[in-house]
């Protein structure tokens, strides 16, 4: 059973600290509000000045009291009522007409407004933080507890950990990753069984280089180096001539599509799909290859010739991968290219799918007619499968011609 740990909230953040933080925020807020008020005043002054400047040119002269220092006035008049001297800053003045002065002032007003709005947003931000601190302090004060429960993995791969606080989300993520790893190894073992069965039933002529490409980033997080080792037994020991077959692979989300593939694989083989419902491309591909071969023996030579062509660049894979798959077998004529940099880390980078265009078209036609899950050309190509004396030798012999394959370790 999952074990629970109860931690009082107060132990995570002390009450006084939270209160002090809240208080600091309040002080900051009050300062900013003062500044905000000041800006508001400036904007108001600017507006009234614009009004004044607009009205002054209406008369030739205005009778006024002219200030003389701070404590004395002279009676006098405004003259040149359309000429204004505006301070531009840094000791520079500009003599402008009323209209031009108004424009200057308007621009100033805009700048002030934007300052004001920015400051307002900041104040709002700080207010949110302050309220957050207040809540924290209140929670800690009233003795709220955080209950943590370990995530127990279920076969359905949907078990969720019970947690009462948001602080557990990180633990959750870790759990999910760990679970999918476990699930993965389960699937792998199931695949092993299936493959062995197939091997027994297969004819000798078939040479199959299986692979998966883990290029799909959806796989990445659930795969790691250790599972790559687990993968090794899945490789086809058979190696005659590396036959590249065109596979079309559907775009898959980690669970959904592979589940579907698993279903199809099961249907093809007459077995129920493996539990856990994630099927690696490898097993399915293998199955497809088997059927493919049996059905289209004539095509094989073609395929072979086309075999060692340049693997598709990665981005082509990305494009088909992004197509949504439903039942279309053409969604992805699968050239999945092993990413050079990922070979070491990616569990499935073992294989490189080459997809010469001519082969592709042929395969495509066949793909529509076949009921297979995949039609694809798969060239196994993994150096981390290294020690197995299986496909590598053949694949290497075949694939050495391929210019871009860097991962070969043969």
């Amino acid at each position: 059973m999952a074990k629970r740990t109860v931690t009082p909230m107060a132990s995570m953040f002390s009450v006084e600290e939270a209160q002090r933080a809240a208080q600091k925020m309040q002080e900051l807020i009050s300062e900013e509000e003062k500044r905000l008020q000041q800006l508001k005043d400036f904007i108001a002054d600017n507006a009234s000045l614009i009004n004044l400047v607009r009205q002054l040119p209406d008369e030739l002269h205005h009778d006024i009291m002219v200030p003389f220092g701070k404590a004395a006035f002279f009676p006098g008049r405004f003259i040149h009522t359309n000429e204004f001297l505006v301070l531009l800053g840094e000791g520079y003045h500009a003599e402008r007409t009323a209209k031009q002065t108004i424009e200057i002032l308007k621009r100033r007003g805009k700048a002030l407004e934007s300052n004001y709005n920015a400051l307002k947003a900041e104040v709002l931000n700080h207010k949110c933080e302050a309220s957050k601190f207040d809540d924290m302090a209140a929670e800690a004060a009233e003795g709220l507890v955080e209950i943590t429960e370990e995530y127990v993995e279920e076969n359905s791969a949907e078990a969720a950990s019970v947690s009462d606080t948001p602080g557990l989300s990180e633990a959750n993520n870790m759990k999910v990753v760990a679970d999918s790893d476990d699930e993965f190894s389960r699937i792998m073992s199931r695949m092993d069984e299936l493959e062995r069965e197939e091997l027994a039933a297969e004819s000798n002529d078939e040479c199959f280089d299986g692979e998966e490409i883990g290029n799909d980033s959806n796989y990445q997080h659930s795969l790691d180096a250790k599972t790559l080792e687990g993968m090794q037994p899945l490789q086809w020991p058979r190696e005659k001539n590396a036959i590249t077959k065109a596979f079309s692979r559907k775009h898959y989300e980690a669970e959904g599509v592979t589940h579907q593939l698993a279903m199809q694989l099961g249907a093809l083989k007459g077995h129920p799909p493996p539990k856990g419902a994630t099927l690696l491309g490898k097993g399915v591909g293998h199955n497809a290859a088997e059927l493919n071969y049996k059905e289209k023996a004539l095509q094989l030579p073609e395929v072979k010739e086309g075999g060692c062509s340049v693997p598709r660049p990665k981005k082509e894979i990305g494009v088909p991968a992004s197509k949504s798959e439903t039942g279309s077998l053409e969604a992805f004529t699968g050239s999945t290219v092993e990413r050079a940099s990922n070979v070491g880390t990616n569990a499935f980078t073992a294989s490189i799918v080459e997809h010469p265009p001519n082969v592709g078209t042929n395969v495509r036609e066949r793909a529509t007619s076949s009921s297979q899950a995949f039609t694809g050309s798969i060239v196994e190509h993994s150096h981390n499968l290294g020690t197995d004396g299986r496909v590598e030798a053949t694949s290497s012999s075949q694939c050495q011609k391929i210019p871009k394959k860097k991962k070969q370790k043969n």
Partner: protein
Amino acid sequence: MDSKIHEKVKQYEGFIDGRLKPDLVKAIAERDKVFEQQKIFSDLRKNIQNLEKHSVTSLTTLVNLGSEVYMQAEVPDTRTIFVDIGLGFHVEFTWSEAINYIKLREEKLARQIEEYTQLIASVKAHIKMVCEGIRELLHLQAEPSY
């Protein structure tokens, strides 16, 4: 025994920081304001004397409308000037009357400044006394006052 001394010391320090020092700050601020006023009137007097010397009858000035936007203004007759005598009143003076008034005003301001200076000095003396008391309590060397 020690704790009592510490308590007293704390008390004295608190008194200094809480009472005497703010008093000092306030007194200094008030005195500065009076200084400013004094300067304003002294400048005004100098200006009027200048006008008299050069017999300036009219002049043009730039008037600040706010936010450093200036407008030209003309003073056709500078013989009369309105001087602020306080409480919101301005009195029309001729030059000589104005100069007279300003002189009297300046004297009054000087007396005010003198009062503030004395207040500041007394506050400073209080602070010094309390510091000495603290020092005695802590048996430190008394500062040489000669």
